[in-house]
């Protein structure tokens, strides 16, 4: 059965890169006592995929990992059944799954601080249900360090609105192959200034030093394999518009949710395990 785990990654572990975090997650599943499904062959590995890679230094409250677990999937039909066969498993003989809550508890009992599985839902086995292919956008809370974008709250709020209300938001995009001007307006769905947002109530943010002003910018932007906009690019363009210096680490990026087509959170596409 494919289980979609929604997880957080906050605190020091934000400095662990995507590939190392996948290895961490694999070991966590092994520790949890949940039975994973492994590939066959010389070096078996857990069948695990992540929805949207997170950059080193970024934190998340709403990311997703799809894990294949060896429990009976009563909802599997047709094509989905055949997918299990290839791992040498017969669904009829697998044990019934624990509930979503039990799965969360099993995972959280063996996690390092800062990583928590907050929901587990059952998802289908078809190609179209692959987490990575589903991702369309993500929301981010960008925590502003004291001293970054040093305008008073009202002015910063107004500045953000003025910048976003332009018809086009051209940025200079440099890739390995080319340099060109790109309009990010269609990719940036939402942006707003926030003061004392809810995130400041949550650990570890509530205790983090250097953010006495409790200011943040909320954005929602295109994320995924078809269209993608990096929050850092938004901050850079905004700072340039405001004629303020853009320090690369003057802020902390926290992804708050990952969405599929139609603005549905990825967990909403799964079915409850109870």
């Amino acid at each position, binding site marked *: 059965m494919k289980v979609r785990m929604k997880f957080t990654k906050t605190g020091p572990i934000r400095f662990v890169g995507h590939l190392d*975090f996948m290895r961490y997650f694999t070991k966590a599943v092994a520790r949890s006592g949940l039975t994973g499904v492994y590939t066959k062959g010389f070096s078996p590995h857990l069948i695990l995929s992540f929805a949207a890679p997170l950059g080193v*230094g970024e934190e998340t409250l709403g990311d997703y990992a799809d894990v294949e677990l060896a429990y009976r999937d009563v909802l599997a039909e047709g094509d989905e059944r055949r997918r299990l066969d290839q791992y040498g498993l017969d669904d009829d003989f697998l044990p019934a799954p624990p509930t979503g809550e039990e799965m969360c508890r099993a995972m959280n009992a063996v996690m390092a*601080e*800062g990583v928590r599985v907050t929901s587990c839902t059952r998802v289908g086995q078809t190609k179209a249900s692959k987490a990575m292919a589903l991702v369309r956008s993500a929301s981010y809370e960008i925590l502003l360090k004291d001293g970054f974008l040093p305008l008073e709250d009202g002015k910063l709020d107004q500045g953000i609105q003025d910048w976003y209300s332009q018809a086009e938001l051209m940025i200079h995009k440099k890739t390995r192959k080319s340099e060109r001007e790109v309009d990010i307006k269609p990719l940036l769905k939402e942006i707003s200034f926030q003061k004392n947002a809810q995130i400041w109530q949550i650990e570890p943010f509530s205790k983090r030093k250097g953010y006495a002003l409790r200011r943040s910018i909320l954005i929602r932007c295109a994320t995924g394999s078809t269209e993608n906009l990096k929050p850092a690019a938004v901050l850079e363009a905004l700072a340039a518009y405001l004629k303020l210096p853009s320090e690369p680490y003057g802020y902390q990026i926290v992804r708050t949710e990952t969405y599929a087509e139609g603005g549905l959170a990825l967990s909403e596409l799964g079915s409850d395990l109870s």
Partner: protein
Amino acid sequence: MIEPVLDDRILMNVEKPARYIGNEQGSIVKDKKDVSIRFAMCFPDVYEIGMSHLGIQIIYEQLNRRSDTWCERVYSPWTDLAEIMKKEQIPLYALESQDPVKEFDFLGITLQYELCYTNVLQILDLSGIPFFAKDRTLDNPIVMGGGPCTYNPEPIAPFFDLFYIGESEAVMDDLMDLYRNMKEEGKSRADFIKAAGQIEGIYAPNLYEASYHEDGTIADFRPLDPDLPGKVKRVIAPDLNRAPYPRQPIVPYIRAVQDRVTLEVQRGCIRGCRFCQAGIVYRPLREKDHKTVEEYAEDMIKSSGYDEISLSSLSTSDYSQLPELLDYLIDRFHQNHVNVSLPSLRIDNFSLDVMNKVQDIKKSSLTFAPEAGTQRMRDVINKGLTEEDILKGAGSAFEGGWNKVKYYFMLGLPTETEEDRKGIAHLAQKTAELYYDTVPKEKRSGGVDITVSTSFFVPKPFTPFQWAEMVHPKDYIAYARTVRNEIRLQKNQKRIHYKWHEADGTVLEGVLARGDRKLAPAILWAYQHGCVFDSWVETFHYQTWLDAFAACGIDVDFYTTRKRGKEEIFPWDFIDVGVTKKFLLKEWERAVEEGVITPNCREACSACGARCFGQGVCFEDKGKLSDYAKLVFKEGRQIPPKEQEHETAVQAEGEVTS
């Protein structure tokens, strides 16, 4: 949750920031208000290397079991971060609490190889601890060294307050109790160091003094205080089966060199290879009960989530309970996708069956260490391995489907000749031929691939070869060329790859390994002129070291190529490792004067002295002679050692000659 002490701005600009954040699964966080001893345990190299070290994991477990102690980890910051820390005056910190090392009670540093000495100075420097022990005050941690290099700690003696000589299980708790009591009583740093120096196994280097003959050799070495012992005795664990061992290993976020569960199955080695320090200073061989090992395997796999178990020892084939243990591990963990790996297998009892059992994964290469190219040379080093053994091993590997073989050899061994060096090439050629004889054409996938690696021999303290002269630096490269040229003359030379490295590091290692206290200023000079991470090719600056020796009046040849007399007092002679100097000298003579092998500890006792510890193989029945030993002894080519002290040994001798 403890936030990294380093700012994002710094961490995002250094290589692998995850090295510096701590917070790994299995790491132990205590409240510093609840403990009276804070112990920073340091491996002076990068995180990925330090995290792979089993000894530190054992000490971490042992100390953290104490409710009055919090043991944390410290590693060397890589050059990028070290530069920033120095520039911005950020003090070196321990991973768990992210607190500065200088606030700790102890800084324990494991000394695994001589080329880490400048890293030790960097640790002190970045921590803000004075380099010299004599300059430290009550505010500074007690700096204590441990590990293999403490079997000659003299070149770095002035930088340490204490050295722990032996296994942590023995007296670490006594030392911590002593510290806590004396701290509570408000005793001085000097009082504690002197008291510690009276615990068996603890050496307080600055309370000892050496005097020298005119030629630079040691005339006398003695304690400055009559309460301190003239000889420091190595201490060992009272009972390995009951010793602390991590049931919940720390699982690093980034890939460490040893990224798996490590199970120690035994300590010590029966072999007595004459170049090998570990083979002497960890005597006697002590096996752990396989049931104990299995129990740990269970817990460690469960708590870590690792998918590989590695059995650790100096020579795993000599572990008498290996079949039972392997059967259990494979049976228990195979369906859980956990692999078992077996480093340190010997060729002579190389078992295809075992290898096939554990390696049903990719048939990658198999590594053998014949160490020398001819039988004469292998007998001198007491490798106890024939060409037939080696080729039989390789042949079984080929039959089993392997086609890559790696051979390790040493160059510059005592009595080594041109013929011995060329023998390396010949052995590689014979192996290649064997492949074509063994594997039928239709089964040869990609052909045979033989890699020959040579390293240069460095004589180490407490080995029979401690009297050996090192060869001149320019000769090393000539020796390597001989091997290379001879390989090129072989019929299958295209199938044989030869690897060797520069000899500069070897010379430095040679100086530091058998050096004395006169070297300390040169080590400091080298560090202050930019030497650090000397074991890394990209950061090793040999010329700076030569400048350091010149500036401090050190004659490199005195430590490397000089012929040492049998009567000479060595800088490390004040340490009693159990094995006697008399035995080592006898072994040296058997090697270079007689060219004869000595049976291993299971074949016959050679009365090395390690029996004084009252444990292990010394108390097993003897007489299990290997086929090779039986053959050579029967032919009368060689004789087992005389002067047997123990009954069991005499019986064994009787069996051999009958």
